[in-house]
């Protein structure tokens, strides 16, 4: 590709857009294949390779455009192949399906029925729009994900990319902040802080230079919308940052990407280089006199670095330890200069507000939570994936209408939101409209939008223990309430899950929670007790079962579970015996088998491999 000439003005951008639009190939067959982390793990790279081979063999290579994109959100049905203008979506495709797809769909223009998504036993969906998973979605922030090639600047420009920047550079910085304020944008990374207020504080804070930072240290387990945005539409995030930087008066930007996201980092770096080439970064951007550069920083696998002051310390090359925030980081952040930090999704909303206007944005959502939010619906759920919905849809709509409910007809138990800072919400709260304030009122929080669905086989005491164990590992150790308090709470929970719980343990946990919330230095510690408190609040009976009856009703806590074979159901097929690594299972062929509890290490393998549900966990 020729090296692009840096654009010098909004008019040059407009002219480029027009020439790209007119050059756009019409009539060519286009095969779109998402190739992001999830899809790659399911074999999309093999499909692309195979498609290229088959097309070359059939001498069709020049007639077909293969579009390699980011993720379309419906991870469960990956790998996906979309063919236009036939307008058909194939799901769970394997490389072996490729020759048939080429012959039937690309050559003959017919549909391969068996690869369509089954909506019901009788009906198969032909296009994405027909899938229930997309029914309530409003894909604005993710509109390009899975549609454009994230490594192509031209693709992004063709969607109207960087026109929001051109428009913003003709506005006064204060006007942009006013627009964001009117839109009611709140931070998508955690607490839901008012974005415009943050920008304004940073703008008016004394000190130069000012810094604008993308927080891509998406640490909440179960949330991956930021990874998906960076992998699928990195220019949108960057454009948002540049607009924000101009509004704040910042000349230096940073992105802090977590170490576990190599593809997101690679795609964003590509975007940075392209933006530099096209003149969206550097000196005198689009002739406006505004200068801006961005530096990339990679994390080292520390959850606490998602916290603003810890992240900034890490950018300075120090340990990622938070500090007390009597003075906020927007006033004194990196090297004690005013520093404005927003997460990936928040920045990605900014071009939308500038392009479509604050009024358009503010009519989406609820009273105090505007716009859409991307949620990752994961765990015990049929349709795992990322959904973008207007704020205010209910948990039930997300879990059942989009998520398709719980696999194997199991019973819904809880949905966990907000990551390790959030809580578990029970069935009785399923009709709760999801926005920042309602989730907080219910004892959980929005966090970055992870929703982990739990069914009857999930033990809520174990979930609380899981989060505390996570936070014990991730606590930076600077303040005592967090470092020691979490450890002691975990000791109690470990005791309970081992069947050694005592009366008064729950009350002790509640008391300690209060202490940690009041005294911890940063939000990691301050919200750490939430998973414990919310599970005590809504699932106290499970704690009591562990403590009083020494039982784990869900059959998760190893020490409280025994495995046995139901002689009525056992066919004596011998699969469990073959798989048992300790020789605990004995039995003659075609006769019911037995588990020797003395040898059993409770690994659960027999339970997993039994096809007749004869192994019982109690």
């Amino acid at each position: 590709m020729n090296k692009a000439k840096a654009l010098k003005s909004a008019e040059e951008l407009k002219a480029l857009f027009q020439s790209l639009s007119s050059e756009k190939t019409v009539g060519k067959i286009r095969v779109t294949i998402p190739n992001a982390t999830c899809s790659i793990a399911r074999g999309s790279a093999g499909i692309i390779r195979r498609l290229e081979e088959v097309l070359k063999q059939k001498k069709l290579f020049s007639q077909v455009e293969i579009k390699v994109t980011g993720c379309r959100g419906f991870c469960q049905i990956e790998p996906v192949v979309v063919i236009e203008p036939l307008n058909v979506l194939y799901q769970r495709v394997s490389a072996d399906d490729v020759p048939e797809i080429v012959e039937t769909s690309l050559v003959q223009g017919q549909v391969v029925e068996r690869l369509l998504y089954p909506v019901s036993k009788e009906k198969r969906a032909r296009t994405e729009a027909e899938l229930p998973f997309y029914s309530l979605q409003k894909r604005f922030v993710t509109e390009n994900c899975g549609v454009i090639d994230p490594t192509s600047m031209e693709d992004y420009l063709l969607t109207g990319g960087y026109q929001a920047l051109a428009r913003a550079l003709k506005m006064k910085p204060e006007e942009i902040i006013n627009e964001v304020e009117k839109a009611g944008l709140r931070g998508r990374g955690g607490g839901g802080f008012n974005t415009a207020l943050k920008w304004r504080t940073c703008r008016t804070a004394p000190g130069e230079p000012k810094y604008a930072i993308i927080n891509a240290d998406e640490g909440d387990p179960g949330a991956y919308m930021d990874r998906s945005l960076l992998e699928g539409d990195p220019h949108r995030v960057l454009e948002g940052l540049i607009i924000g930087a101009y509004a704040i008066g910042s000349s230096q930007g940073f992105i802090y990407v977590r170490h576990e996201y190599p593809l997101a980092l690679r795609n964003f770096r590509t975007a940075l280089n392209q933006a530099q080439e096209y003149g969206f970064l550097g000196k005198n951007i689009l002739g406006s006199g505004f200068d801006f550069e961005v530096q990339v920083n990679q994390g080292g696998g520390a959850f606490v670095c998602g916290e603003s002051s810890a992240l900034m310390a890490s950018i300075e090359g120090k340990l990622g330890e938070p500090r007390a925030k009597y003075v906020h980081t927007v006033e004194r952040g990196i090297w004690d200069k005013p520093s404005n930090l927003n997460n990936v999704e928040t920045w990605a909303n900014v071009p939308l507000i500038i392009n479509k206007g604050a009024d358009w944005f503010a009519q989406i959502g609820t009273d105090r939570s505007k716009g859409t939010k991307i949620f990752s619906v994961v765990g015990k759920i049929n349709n795992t994936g990322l959904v973008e919905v207007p704020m205010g849809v209910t948990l039930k709509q997300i879990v059942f209408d989009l998520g398709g409910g719980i696999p194997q007809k199991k019973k819904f138990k809880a949905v966990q939101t907000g990551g390790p800072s959030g809580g578990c919400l029970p069935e009785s709260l399923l009709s709760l409209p999801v926005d920042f304030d309602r989730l907080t009122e219910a004892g959980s929080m929005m966090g970055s939008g992870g929703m982990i669905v739990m069914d009857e086989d999930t033990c809520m005491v174990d979930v609380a223990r899981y989060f505390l164990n996570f936070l014990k590992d991730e606590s930076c150790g600077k303040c005592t309430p967090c470092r020691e308090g979490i450890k002691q709470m975990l000791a109690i929970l470990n005791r309970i899950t081992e069947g050694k719980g005592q009366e008064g343990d729950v009350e002790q946990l509640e008391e300690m929670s209060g202490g940690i919330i009041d005294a911890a230095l940063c939000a990691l510690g301050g919200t750490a007790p939430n998973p414990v408190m919310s599970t005590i609040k809504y699932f106290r009976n499970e704690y009591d079962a562990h403590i009083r009856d020494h039982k784990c009703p869900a059959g998760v806590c190893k020490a409280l579970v025994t495995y046995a074979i139901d002689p009525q159901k056992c066919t004596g097929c011998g699969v469990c015996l073959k798989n048992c690594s300790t020789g605990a299972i004995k039995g003659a062929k075609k006769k019911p088998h037995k588990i020797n509890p003395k040898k059993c290490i409770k690994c659960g393998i027999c339970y997993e491999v039994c096809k007749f549900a004869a192994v019982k966990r109690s």
Partner: protein
Amino acid sequence: MKKAAVDKIIDSYGADRSQIIAIMNEVQDEERYLPEETLKHIAQRLELPLAQLYSISTFYRVFSLVPKGKHQCTVCMGTACHVRGAERVLSELERVLKVKSGETTKDKQFSLDTVNCVGACALGPIVIMDGEYHGQVTAAKARNVLKKPEAK
């Protein structure tokens, strides 16, 4: 690692002290751990106390001060993987490899580690073997993940 190679990394960041984590990340990527000699050299070049490098090495999860095995096996312990039984998968791998998470087998073939969510939750429980993602791993299937490299 040769000093010249380390210098090249340091210089690519303009010997900027604030880029210490990035520099150590690159060394770690190459060597798969941080050799003492290399750390001493970096400390000298950047005029930083070795203790600071030590504290960074032990604070951030990706760094290791001991050599890693030939093959890296990482079990995702994100919440979505957890509710789908990641802990049972980890116990089984610990049992098969005869090491605890964070350790390396005696023959230096396998290192077993955990990671707090790789953000590919649809595939949970996930085990990453030498960079390759294995999805929907169960305790029963866990040992198959280790098979391929063993055969090589």
